[in-house]
Structure formats: structure tokens, C-alpha cells
């Protein structure tokens, strides 16, 4: 039972982070290697606002979420806007550079020591027993709940929302979309904002659960695996991929070797790329084969 609970929690974390990759990739065909750092930045923003609104945890979370959206838009407007239509390598490298810059800035501002936003907010994180023999922390339960909410929200937004439909259109065919009067730059900025927002929520909740330092960005990189397994342009795929990767990782840690935890997602990536490079639910034409 405990294993299943662990898988579900890890899958929720992965899913919440992976949807950020999918959102950006689907709209603008860019792989955002700074996603991990952006989510960590969200967590640090929470830590910063926690000291301002120590007695109002919800206000602190809300303010930092809004700030993280602003960060996402800024990253797009200031940097990534110039990279639209450039080579794949250049775009990837720019996001890597953004990640490195953010990492340096985070250490400069908040130091490399481990921080505990949970204590700064005067909250506690008691374990709860869901069913007999399986207990998870309150924050982990919150992560699962939040992931469900975010995915529900995104599905509705992309299917029924006016801007959601525009986002899908821009992703399918940017040229036609812009011909129909869709402001592509606004759409891309929106994708970056949504992606940073969901990533930051994930970062905040992980930080509340298990403390915060800048090495947390690694999990952001690992979360690329579920996005790829499910197909880079499919949200449902990201959800399915999250379960596959989390299942493989938890089982490998439990039955084989705890050191494998950092490698399993990448092994899954290799397996996917060999067998089905476009992922479970991805569009096949993405691959640009000759």
C-alpha cells in the first residue's frame, strides 16, 4: 500500500511539473530546460513572501503565484521572444542559460543554505493515514489534490476557453493562426505564464513538504521524462507518462537500488525514444522524418 501511495505522490509531482514542458512545447516547439529552476524560483518567492505575510499562508501563496506568472511573462518577453524561429539548439541553449542565471541569482539572493518555508509560514505538516498501512504527509496530499485541480483546469481551459482554443490553434499551425488574427506573441507569453505558474505551484508544495535549496531543480529536469513518454504535445500523455515514470522509479528504488532514482527517468526516456519516439499520445509528424 505504501508503495502505491508513494507512486501516486511522485506521479502527481511529475505530472504537475511535466505539464509546464507540454504547454510550452505544444505552443512554441521549444523545450524549456529552465523549467526546474523556474519552479525553484517560485518556491523561493514563497519563502520571500512568507516573511511578509507570516500569518496569512494563503495570501503568501497567492502573491508568490502571481509573481511567478510575472516571471514567466518576463522571461518570454525579454528573452525567448527573440528566439522564436531560431535554431532548435539556440533556443534550448537560451533556456539552459536562463536556468544557470536563475540558479546563480537564487544563491546570491537567498544563499545556498537549506530553507524551510513551512516554518516561516507557521504551518505544520502532519502525516495522514489514507488507508490502512499507507501514510503520506499533508503537503503530499495537497500536491495530489493540486495536480488534479490543475489538470482539470487546463483541460477545461484548452477545450472551452477562448484563449485555450487560440493556444491550440497557434500550436497546430502558427501561420494560419496568425492569419486569423491571433496574436502569437500573446499566446506564447500566455503559455510561458501558465507553465511557470504550474511549475511554481509544484515547487512551492515540494518546498513546503521537504524544505528548499537550489539542488531541487534536478527534479524539474527529471520531470521532462514523463512529458516525453506521454508525447511532448499531449497533456493527457503527460499524466500517463507521470504514472509510468513514477512507478518505474519507485519500484526501482524499492527493489533494485536507491541510487537508481536519478537514472530511471532517463532510462525510460531512452526506451521511449527507441520504441516510440513521439511518445504515447504525441503527434507523429513532430519527428520531421525524411
Amino acid at each position: 500500500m505504501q508503495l502505491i501511495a508513494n507512486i501516486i505522490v511522485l506521479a502527481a509531482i511529475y505530472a504537475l511539473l511535466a505539464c509546464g514542458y507540454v504547454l510550452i512545447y505544444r505552443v512554441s516547439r521549444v523545450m524549456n530546460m529552465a523549467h526546474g529552476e523556474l519552479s525553484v524560483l517560485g518556491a523561493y518567492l514563497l519563502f520571500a513572501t512568507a516573511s511578509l505575510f507570516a500569518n496569512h499562508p494563503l495570501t503568501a501563496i497567492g502573491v508568490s503565484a502571481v509573481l511567478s506568472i510575472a516571471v514567466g511573462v518576463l522571461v518570454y518577453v525579454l528573452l525567448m521572444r527573440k528566439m522564436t524561429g531560431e535554431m532548435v539548439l539556440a533556443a534550448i541553449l537560451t533556456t539552459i542559460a536562463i536556468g544557470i542565471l536563475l540558479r546563480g541569482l537564487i544563491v546570491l539572493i537567498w544563499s545556498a543554505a537549506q530553507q524551510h518555508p513551512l516554518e516561516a509560514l507557521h504551518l505544520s505538516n502532519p502525516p495522514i493515514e489514507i488507508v490502512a498501512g499507507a501514510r503520506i504527509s499533508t503537503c503530499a496530499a495537497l500536491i495530489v489534490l493540486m495536480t488534479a485541480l490543475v489538470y482539470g483546469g487546463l483541460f477545461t481551459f484548452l477545450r472551452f476557453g477562448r484563449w485555450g482554443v487560440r493556444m491550440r490553434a497557434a500550436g497546430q499551425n502558427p501561420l494560419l493562426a496568425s492569419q486569423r488574427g491571433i496574436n502569437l506573441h500573446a499566446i506564447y507569453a500566455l503559455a510561458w505564464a501558465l507553465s511557470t505558474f504550474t511549475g511554481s505551484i509544484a515547487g512551492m508544495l515540494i518546498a513546503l513538504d521537504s524544505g528548499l535549496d537550489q539542488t531541487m531543480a534536478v527534479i524539474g529536469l527529471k520531470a521532462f521524462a514523463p512529458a516525453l513518454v506521454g508525447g511532448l504535445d499531449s497533456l493527457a500523455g503527460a499524466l500517463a507518462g507521470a504514472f509510468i515514470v513514477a512507478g518505474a522509479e519507485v519500484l526501482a528504488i524499492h527493489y533494485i537500488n536507491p541510487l537508481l532514482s536519478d537514472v530511471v527517468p532517463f532510462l525510460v526516456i531512452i526506451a521511449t525514444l527507441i520504441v516510440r519516439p513521439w511518445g504515447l499520445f504525441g503527434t507523429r509528424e513532430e519527428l520531421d522524418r525524411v
Partner: protein
Amino acid sequence: MSRVPGASGYFRTSYAQDLALLRTGFERACLAAFIVALAAFPFVASPFQLDLACQVFLASVGSLSLMLLTGYAGQISLGHAGLIAAGAFTVGVLFREMNAQFWVTLPAAAFVGAALGIIFGLPSLRLRGLYLAVSTLALHFVVIYAGGEYESRRGFSTGIVIDPPSLGGVSISSGRAWYLILLIAAAAALLICRNLLRARTGRAWRAISAHETVAGALGIAVARYKLLAFVISSAITAVAGALFAYYRGFVSVEAFSLFLTVQYLAMVIVGGMGSLLGAILGATFITIFPYVIEGALLALPGAQSLAGLLFAVNYAAFGLVMIFFLVLEPLGLVGIWRRVQSYFLLWPYARRSPTGGRR
């Protein structure tokens, strides 16, 4: 060197001239001066400067091989650190297990690199762009994991110590000896790359990079040349890793993080895509950059309190430089150099700098 009577300037009149490594007397003179300067350097430099030069040479070997793969053959790789690690670990393992000498370990490292190059390159037959980048990234983590496993299984949890190599009973440990060896290695790497690029292989790579379908239609064996690019580049990279292991005298997986890959990619970008000169300029820039930052930071008032932040400042500055070159100066240092060059060449006439070609 044929000077057409009455012509002003330098014109190539045969294919042999087009292929020649050095085209004019001026270039030869420059090269000779450069070699003299390089040879004189160890006799005037301090040990610290000597170490810096050695690092630049090591980085040059690595960045040249990456330039071959990414800048010319157009294959994206995020697994460069994994290949360097593979070379370094080959040395470490062979030295520890069999007490092998460097004339065994260096070819072995090249061989391991070539074998890994096939593995790293296989996805490129099916995948392109982002997917290829991700597959090499994944392989990087697998190589690092294998290295880490070896360390912990054999009880070298902090790293493998390697004795300095010995040549004819004399162990090579002085800075000057290393300077000479690494200079030769870097020069050899440059010569190999240069020769590959001016021959059939290099032309095939450029064609593939420009347009794969057209390259195939021209009769180039696309799959074979892609794999060849990975194999050659990986072999050179692994040798760079092996030299790195000997130079440091120590191998540990911590040294081969993803950040190392990013540094090498930054060398290629900062130097300028598709230019061997760029690879060397980039390697020099990225290697010396952290020391410049350190010097600048320590020169500020209240330097002692800033010393702890050095790492973070370096990181942030590195990110900024990369963003600067990617967004504002995509042709890199070579692009700047060419602009300056053409400004002086065309001086009174062209006020606006003509946009130089990518290669």
C-alpha cells in the same frame, strides 16, 4: 601562391590553393610568430598562468570535437560531459585494475569513446533536433551512473587517484611538461579537425547539416557520415577526458555534471558556430572567464565578505554571457572578429559592416 600580374589582392587560381592550409605568406608569418609565442610562454609565465594555459588547451580539444559534431555536422549533443567522463573513467579503471601505462590507456580511451559514439549516434539516424538532444542527455546520465556505480562498488567513493604518467622512467608532473604535452594534443586535435573538414568527410558533414534530404540525393551516405561524425567527435572527446584525468591526477563523477556539457556548448556558441577558430576562442574565453570574474570581485571594496558568493556570481555571470551571445551576437567572437576585419579591409568604402556568412 600565384600573383596574377596587375591584380590587386589575392586570388586563388587552382584547387590546390583552395585546399591549402596556409594560403599566403602573411598567414605563414603569423603562424610562425604564434608558434614562437606559444613556445616562449612557459619560460615567462607564472605557475598559475601555466595552469590556466593547460586548462585552455584541454578545453580546446573538447570544444574542437564538439564543434566538429555540432558546428559542422549539425548534430546536437547534450552528452559531451558524459563522453569526457567516459574517457577519464577509462583511464581511471585501467590504471586501478591493471596498472596500465598511458600509451595503453589513451588509445583505450579513444576506443571507448568511439564505441560510445556509435551508441550516442544511433538515435541520430531516427531522431532530429530536440529529440536527439534529449537522447544524448539521457545517455549522459547513464554514463555518469555507471561511473558512480564503479566508484562505490570498488570503494573509491571520493574518487579515483591516478599517478602522473611516466615517459622513459621520468614522471611527468611539472607544469612545463604538461604545457608541452597538452599544447601538442590541442594542435593535433586542430590539425585532425582541419584535415577532416577540408576533405570529403567535412564536405559531406556540411551538406548533411545544410539539408539532409538534398545531401542524400547528392549521393552522400547520410547515415554513415552522421555516425562517423559521432564516432570521431566522441573519440577525440574521450581522449580529452583521459588527458584531463592525468592532468588532474584524480577522477570523480562530480566533475562531470551537466554543467560541464553546458560549458562546452557555451564555448561553441561564444566562439561562433561553424568555425574551428571559434572553438579555440570560445574555449579560451570560457576557461579564463571565471578567473576574471574572481579577480574583478576581489578587487571590489569589502572583498572578503564577497568571497563566499563567488560561486553564485560566477554562475549568474556565465548565464548572462551565454544569453548575451545567443540573443545579441549569434555568430560569436568569430563574428565580431570578422566584422572588425572586414571593416579595416574595406575601410574607406563600406561604413556599414557587411553581414558575414556563417562559415
